Structure formats: structure tokens, C-alpha cells
């Protein structure tokens, strides 16, 4: 075949690839734990080329099992290039080198904002749903989210419950403008660490001093044993009067995906079920 004709063929192939994609992407790679969650909810697993390794360790049990059967990545550029993805989903902050390289190679990539409230979740869900060609599925997820939000609002207790999210590490307490805070407000709680003038970090003494009615204890990454988990298990917490300790998957709660509304609904139910605390002993 003459060289010119080969060039023509290659050119045509390129045109075909660059033309507005009628077919949705079939080899999608996610580089961020939260886009993992969105992707798993939006498309069938056979269209996912790879998820982050974290998707196997945290989040909803069914999604974890699904993720365990898919190839895992740790966000390195070489891994991603070797997968030949037709769409890469990434967060805005992590895997910076990989993202820069992908931009230079011209790969299709969508950088997804970390949504911290329900409006943000609607926006990013629609954005990702459109990119992966699952617009209808995205609307189903959002309708489910709105139903859960309405149910949580109906259950909300009149007097907000004082809650702190703590996993044993002083510097890692979710404050204002986080999805955690949004979930708490929706569920009828007030986040102690989000109040004006709240400390930037909470060690055990400060947690005791803050007198939370509920301590949401961040458990993370199934099976991971950590130093902070030992601190979060300190005997002084069990000795506190009028404190309910509720474990929650902190990794999943950090992800702005429609399923976050389910966490809010679940928390609203638990807060409603708390026994009333008398002011006098």
C-alpha cells in the first residue's frame, strides 16, 4: 500500500475517533475514589476498565464486591496509559502528574469537582452521566436522592442533635463546608466542629469537653488497622454519660454522590431513635 493511502486511512480513523461520539465510552478509567462510586452507580461493570484500589476497601458492600472484580489502579500515569482508556474520570486535586500527562496526550478526561452539597451533587452527577452516556440513569439516581432527602426532612427532629465526627486523629475532624456537614444538617444534627469559632482540631480532651450527644466514629477502609482507630476506642468515651457512639464509613461520606442522601436518611432515623436525655440526673 502506498504511503499516501496509508496516511489517508489513518487520517480517516482519527476523524472517526474524534467525531462526536455517538457510541458511549466503553473503557472508562476512574482515578478518584468518589468518581469510582459515581461510575459504579451509572454504568455496567463491563464498561469500566479500572477503578482506584480504594474502591475495593470502602463504600457500599455491593459496590465493593463489584470493584473487587475489576482492575484496580493507584493513579500512576503509566498504569492509566497502559489501559488505553476512552474516558478518564479524575478528581481536581489528586493524581496531578497523571492528569497533566493525560492532557498532553490528548486523552478524553473529565475532572470532576468534589461536591460538598446537594446542588453540587446534582451538577456533578449530570456532568458525569452525560460524559459516560448514561443521562437517564443519572436522573434515576437523582430522583432517588431527592426522595431520600424529602424523607430525611420529614424525620428531622426539631431540636438539632449535637454531633461530632471523629476517627481518633485530632487534625481530621470534618468542619464547615464539607459534605459531612451537609449530611448532618439534612439529618437534623448540628456539627460541633462547624460552629463559628470551633477549634481547628480536636484531641480526645476536646472531644470530651465538647459534650457531643452523638459521636460519629469514622471507621474506614474495611480491615485497615490504624493507630487512630485505637485512639477512637479510648475508654474515656465509654465512660461519658449521655453519649451515643455511631460508626460510619468516613471514606464514603466524603463523596459527593447521590447515595450520600441515603446516609443522611439513615442518620435522621438513628437520631430520631435516640432516647431523650434528661437535664438532671
Amino acid at each position, binding site marked *: 500500500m502506498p504511503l499516501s493511502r496509508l496516511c489517508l486511512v489513518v487520517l480517516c480513523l482519527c476523524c472517526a475517533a474524534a467525531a462526536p461520539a455517538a457510541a458511549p465510552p466503553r473503557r472508562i478509567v476512574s482515578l478518584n475514589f468518589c468518581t469510582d462510586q459515581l461510575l459504579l452507580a451509572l454504568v455496567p461493570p463491563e464498561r469500566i476498565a479500572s477503578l482506584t484500589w*480504594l474502591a475495593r*476497601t470502602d463504600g457500599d458492600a455491593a459496590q465493593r464486591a463489584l470493584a473487587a472484580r475489576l482492575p484496580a489502579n493507584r493513579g500512576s500515569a503509566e498504569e492509566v496509559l497502559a489501559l488505553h482508556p476512552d474516558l478518564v474520570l479524575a478528581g481536581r486535586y489528586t493524581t496531578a502528574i497523571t492528569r497533566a500527562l493525560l492532557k498532553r496526550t490528548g486523552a478524553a478526561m473529565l475532572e470532576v469537582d468534589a461536591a460538598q452539597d446537594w446542588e453540587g451533587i446534582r451538577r456533578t452527577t449530570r456532568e458525569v452521566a452525560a460524559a459516560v452516556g448514561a443521562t437517564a440513569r443519572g436522573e434515576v439516581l437523582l430522583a432517588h436522592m431527592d426522595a431520600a432527602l424529602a424523607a430525611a426532612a420529614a424525620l428531622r427532629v426539631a431540636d438539632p442533635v449535637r454531633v461530632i465526627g471523629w476517627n*481518633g*486523629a*485530632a*487534625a481530621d475532624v470534618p468542619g464547615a463546608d464539607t459534605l459531612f456537614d451537609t449530611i448532618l444538617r439534612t439529618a437534623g444534627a448540628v456539627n460541633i466542629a462547624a460552629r463559628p469559632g470551633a*477549634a*481547628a*482540631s480536636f*484531641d*480526645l*480532651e*476536646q472531644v*470530651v*469537653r465538647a*459534650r457531643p450527644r452523638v459521636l460519629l466514629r469514622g471507621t*474506614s*477502609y474495611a*480491615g*485497615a*488497622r*490504624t*493507630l*487512630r482507630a*485505637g*485512639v477512637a476506642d*479510648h*475508654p*474515656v468515651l465509654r*465512660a*461519658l*454519660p449521655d453519649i451515643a457512639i455511631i460508626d460510619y464509613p468516613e*471514606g464514603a461520606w466524603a463523596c459527593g454522590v447521590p447515595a450520600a442522601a441515603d446516609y443522611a436518611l439513615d442518620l435522621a432515623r438513628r437520631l430520631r431513635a435516640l432516647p431523650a436525655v434528661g437535664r438532671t440526673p
Partner: protein
Amino acid sequence: MRRVAPLAWLLPLLGALALFSLLPGRAGWLLPWRLTGHDAELARLILWELRLPRLLLALLVGAALGLAGAVLQGLTRNPLAEPGLIGASAGASLGAVIAIYSGLGAAFALAMPLLGLAGALLGTLLTLALGGGGTLSLILAGAAVSGMLLAGTALVLNLAPNPYAAYEISHWMLGSLADRSWDQLGLATPFVLLGMAMLLGTGPSLDALSLGELQAASLGVQLPALRRRVVVGTALAVGAATAVTGTIGFIGLLAPHLVRGAVGHAPRRVLLPAALMGALLLLVADLVARLLPLAQELQLGVLTGLTGSPFFLWLVWRMQRESP
């Protein structure tokens, strides 16, 4: 009387500081006259469950480090020896990290201090075996062994399915007394006290050794037995302590030097005052860590390192001038 003199001011100072250290903390000052009703119950919990174990841990670990430093300096006749520099602390960190992140520690509580002291034993033995030649070779061997063991610690943390590895490595390299419990204190205390008892008993042999190895042997000191005793005692005391607090450097180096001016250079006279001084130093470091008005509490190693490293350099500089 000279021997009693340093104890005479160390003990009351230590006692006063220990009592004072119960007052401040990140939850605010616990002032007895301001506690009523609801606050009193909270204050009791904070005092009893958090600040008291923390205080006792500071005293115990500081004393263990100070004593181990004094004994190691006596054994190696090397003013730069201390548990952190000869691989004991780094080995203990590695042992404790293996216990925690493999889940052994959760299944069997004693695994943590036991693996901690096994690690300290390994580190100390390696350093003494490789660096027996003299002052400098001991320090170099200690640095190499510590580096290797700390790399092992980082490796275990990275291999564990632990997304917080990077944060938790800093705990094991810089140490902290924050948020410890009675359980942890109870696990470490028997081992630390046993090790300290073994170390305190080495005084007479160390005195004889300060005259030289041949002279010591002629005085009836069995050097291999003495070495074993020091290594095992250090591993017990420092290993179990480090398993709970992480690596705390320089206390063992500073404490003996700070008391030598008052008690003289005979190793035996240095031991007990060095233990008290170690407790005092760690207590002060922990107090400063708590009192500094920072958004996050400083790791202890930041403070002991900031004060200890210049002192270490000064010691090296002085040694070079005295014996070029």
C-alpha cells in the same frame, strides 16, 4: 552528701511540675475552684482518664530513656550513646508497628509491648555488634541500623491496607503522649520497671568499667554478662515504652549530661539522677507541647529534636576539640 544533692532539688521540682501538668490541656485549664456541677463530672473524667495516665506515662518513659542513656553511655564509655542513637527506639517502633498493623495487637494485647521490646533488642544487638570499635563507629552503626529499622517501619505502614500511613509514620518517628489510656500504661509499665531495675543494678560494674576493660575484668566484672544485662534491660525499658509513645529522641542523651555536673562522672552516681532528669525533661517537653497555642499539638519529637540536636552537635564539637 554530694550524691544526695541533685536528688534534693530534682524530686520536689518533678513533683511540683507533675501536679502542675494536670492543669493545662487542650480542653482548657482544669482549675479546681472553677469546677461545679456538670463541669466537675467532665473534669473528673478528663483528669482521671486522660491527664493522669499521660502524666504517669511521661514520668515512666522519661525515666526509662534517661536511665538507659546513662547506662549506655557508661557501658560504651561514649558520651554520645543513647537509646535513640543505637537503634533501640527505632527497633521498638518497628516491632510495635508490626503488632498494630498486622492485627496481632488487637487479638493479643501483650503483643505490642512484646514485639516492641523484641525490636529494641534487635536494634541494640545489631548496633553493638557492628559498632563495637569505638565512639564514632558505634554512632555510625547506630545511625545505619536506625535508618534501616525506620525504613522497615515505613515499609510495614505502606504495605498495610492503611490510607493514613503517611500520617501515622510521623507518630512513630516523632513520638507523642496524647490520648493514651490506662490500658496502654498498664501494658508497658511492668516491662519498663523490670528493665529499669536491671539497668539500675549495673552501677558498680559500670564504675569498674570506667577504669578500662582489663581493670574491670581484674575487679571481677564479667563484661559479656554486663553487656547482656544492659542490652536486655534497655530493650525491656525502651522497647515497651516506645511501643506506646513512638520514638522520642534525645532525652536519653541529654539527661545524663545535665546531671553529671552535679553528681560527678562515676557512672553509678549518674544513673538515678539521670532517670529523674529524663522524667523531668519529658514532662517539660509534653507541657510545652500542650501549652503552645497552635492549631494542632506539636509532636514531642519536634521539641526534643529542636533542643537535643544542638546539644548533640555541641558534644561532638567538644569531643573533637578534646581528642582530635
